[in-house]
């Protein structure tokens, strides 16, 4: 295998998650995802423009279900706006008219339509920052699901069941995004208006060289112990760059922050790859019975 090939494999393998995230992110301006049936998606500028074109209090930013499958209800963060500034102050519960309902109305407990201007941190009642490791994310996630999960609202109206499906899916997105350091880092930058292009080519030569070295080490690893060793080295590196990211983000040095994200992305890929390759003991449902007899 040539070095070029190796590098290509390293970069392309297990990159499906990154690719998915890319295509799932309609705020990425590089990606013209437009479908015939899709209503014009409001852009940041139009959101601030006074002309009330595509949405009103009732419609908000919730795109319709059905044909509109790419500009989708489950897509995380159609519009990223920081905090309360964008929250419609005069919003009311669709059911009881009580003021300022959140995901669920506090007075009538009705599930509200998704309000994309509520960011993931707000959903979990967190301050918008990178270091949230010690917060009880899991508990809050479960609390929300007990209020929002579609399995629990079957006796409600069709409308509210749809809201439940949307809200519940968004809370899952929020939970997944905030749980993992890398996706959380990308998300906090997004909230600052900085989009990280994960498809971008690597130009840093030292990183290229390092990736190839790691790649070789993985291929030459004699046993699972050696792989575990590499695995923990990667974890160390991720941690290191995660700390650098935290500092850069705090100092609002976004260039530095993006560099840190790029590093974390590659180390993350290596660990994914190792853990995939160590799965040779996988169990496959291929009719064990017949072969044994």
């Amino acid at each position, binding site marked *: 295998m040539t070095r070029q090939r190796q*590098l*290509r494999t390293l*970069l*392309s393998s297990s*990159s*499906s998650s990154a*690719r*998915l995230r890319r*295509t*799932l992110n309609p705020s990425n301006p590089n990606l*013209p*995802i*437009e*479908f*015939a*049936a899709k209503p014009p998606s409001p852009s940041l500028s139009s959101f601030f423009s006074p002309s009330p074109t595509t949405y009103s209090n009732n419609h908000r930013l919730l795109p319709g279900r059905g*044909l509109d*499958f*790419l500009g*989708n209800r*489950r897509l995380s963060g159609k519009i990223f706006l920081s905090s309360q500034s964008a929250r419609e102050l005069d919003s009311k519960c669709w059911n009881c008219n009580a003021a300022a309902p959140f995901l669920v109305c506090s007075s009538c407990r009705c599930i509200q339509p998704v309000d994309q201007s509520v960011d993931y941190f707000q959903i979990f009642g967190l301050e918008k920052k990178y270091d949230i490791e010690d917060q009880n994310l*899991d*508990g809050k*996630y*479960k*609390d929300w*699901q*007990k209020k929002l*999960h*579609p*399995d*629990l609202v*079957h*006796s409600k109206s069709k409308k509210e*069941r749809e809201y*439940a*499906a949307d809200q*519940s*899916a968004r809370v*899952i997105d929020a939970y*997944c995004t905030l749980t993992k350091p890398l996706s959380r880092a990308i998300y906090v930058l997004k909230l600052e208006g900085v989009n990280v292009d994960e*498809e971008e*080519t*690597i130009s840093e030569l030292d990183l290229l060289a390092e990736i190839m070295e790691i790649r070789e080490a993985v291929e030459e690893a004699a046993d699972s112990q050696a792989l575990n060793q590499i695995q923990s080295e990667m974890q160390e590196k991720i941690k290191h760059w995660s700390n650098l990211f935290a500092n850069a983000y705090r100092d609002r040095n976004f260039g530095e922050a993006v560099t840190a994200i790029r590093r974390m992305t590659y180390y993350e890929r290596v660990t994914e790859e190792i*853990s995939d390759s160590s*799965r040779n*003991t*996988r*169990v*496959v*449902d*291929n*009719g*064990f*019975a*017949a*072969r*044994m*007899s």
Partner: protein
Amino acid sequence: MAEPAYTVASDSENTEEEKSSSTFPEIAIGIDIGTSQCSVAVWNGSQVELLKNTRNQKMMRSYVTFKDEVPSGGVSNQLSHEHELLSGAAIFNMKRLIGRVDTDPVVHASRSLPFLVQTMDIGVRPFIAALVNNVWRSTTPEEALAIFLVELRAMAGIQLKRPVRNVVLTIPVSFGRFQLTRIERACAMAGLHVLRLMPEPTAVALLYAQQQQQTAHDNMGSGSEKIGLIFNMGAGYCDVAVTATAGGVSQIRALAGTTIGGEDLLQNMMHHLLPNAETLFSTHGISEIKAIGLLRVATQDAIHKLSFQASVQIDVDLGNGSKINKVLDRQEFEEVNKKVFEKCESLIIQCLHDAKIEVEDVNDVIAVGGCSYIPKVKDLVLNVCKRQELYKGMNPLEAAVSGAALEGAVASGISDPFGNLDLLTIQVTPLAIGIRADGGKFVPIIARNTTMPARKEMTFTTVHDNQTEALIIVYEGEGQQNAEENHLLGYFKIVGIPSAPKGVPEISVCLDIDASNVLRVYASAKHRGPHQKAMPSMEVRMPTVDDGHGWCAEALHRAYGSTSDLVTVQKKI
């Protein structure tokens, strides 16, 4: 001819309808249809109660006999003797046969059962038949299951003094979506409406969640998160789940399952005791059926005894001149079934790995199902999980059905003043779903163990210059490299891809699993620029395949070759 015991419903009956919408909630019952035994439970207003049949049994044998004009099942029927089950007239192990094609190794292994399982090996539904008055009367696994469910439904109706319609059924983790449609079909034939199909260990996980919540209440504690590993091995299937539970919410972290169980242990032992059993049985003559039946009963009996004693004496006269007299000990039993036990171990390891949980972080290890009584099974679970003892407080045979009954009550919108139904299961996809691309490979779009509901999209491109059509062939499986090794769910064609060099057009494929576990596949060719006339996108609800889908993929390949193939969009360097 007597009236058929089941009502014929259209396929759409159980699918098109709203999954649940009733002004007056009827509490759905939980049913655990096991490969060998079946049980029914219901929330009685304060707790889960298992229903008993007229003979006061909570566990009913899963079989249907075609002895007389009207077939009867194991719910009501009283077997005069165990051997009656093995006379050729009874169909059992329906759960191992349903929704499988005749090339499936599990179906092949079923050919040594004492009724007729015929395979043509062409990828169609196997032919199964019961012996009635020296005639092989054909039936199908769905029909046999429906007849059994009709009896269950009647029994539950009498016990509950109300008609029963809504059910929550437990299913094996390894069941594909096509198999689920067959289960739903059997339920529809029996007049049952499926509220939910729940992977067995997730039903156990829900019971665990409830027990943990009660404990937390009793201790006035906040109820911190607990990680439970559930190992469930019955007669037909072995499943593992890792759940993270707090406050009555069971978040499934990972599932793993395969088609091994007590039936394999039994068949291996029969083969061990009588190495030429298969050749002996291949003719399916009446005396052979009787012989294999005798061997089956004797072996089963010996395996049961070995769970409680170190060795067992087997004496059986097969009636055709061959007699088996042998002392069998545990060690020999464990050696013969070494591979089964190894597979159980690897299943647990895989599930922990997929859940990204270290074994030390598991709070409770729960082993349920009939096989959990086998000492070797207990040992291997404890061993892999590095434990001294298993979780206590669950009846291994009743855990799954109890969980299904809890889910039935929750899904029916019942609430409990003491908060005992303040429960929720957050499920994950047991199998990966994706399409065939990159030269016959399976490219997962929704990975295994993705939280449901889920929606994922991926972009593909063409392999030929000016390729205007693309076949979208959707598969589901554990992610085997080769697409054909997975289960085919359906296929359709994208047309009107703008003419362009290969690799340029973008074809997006989006998979959506909604809250009712319905899978929809959306696909469309992307068009750049305002002057291109856009083609409508496709929306296909899957599975679309029917019986006999085994040869569809091959036929498609023959018709299209690689002319309509796709590849994943490669990362640029």
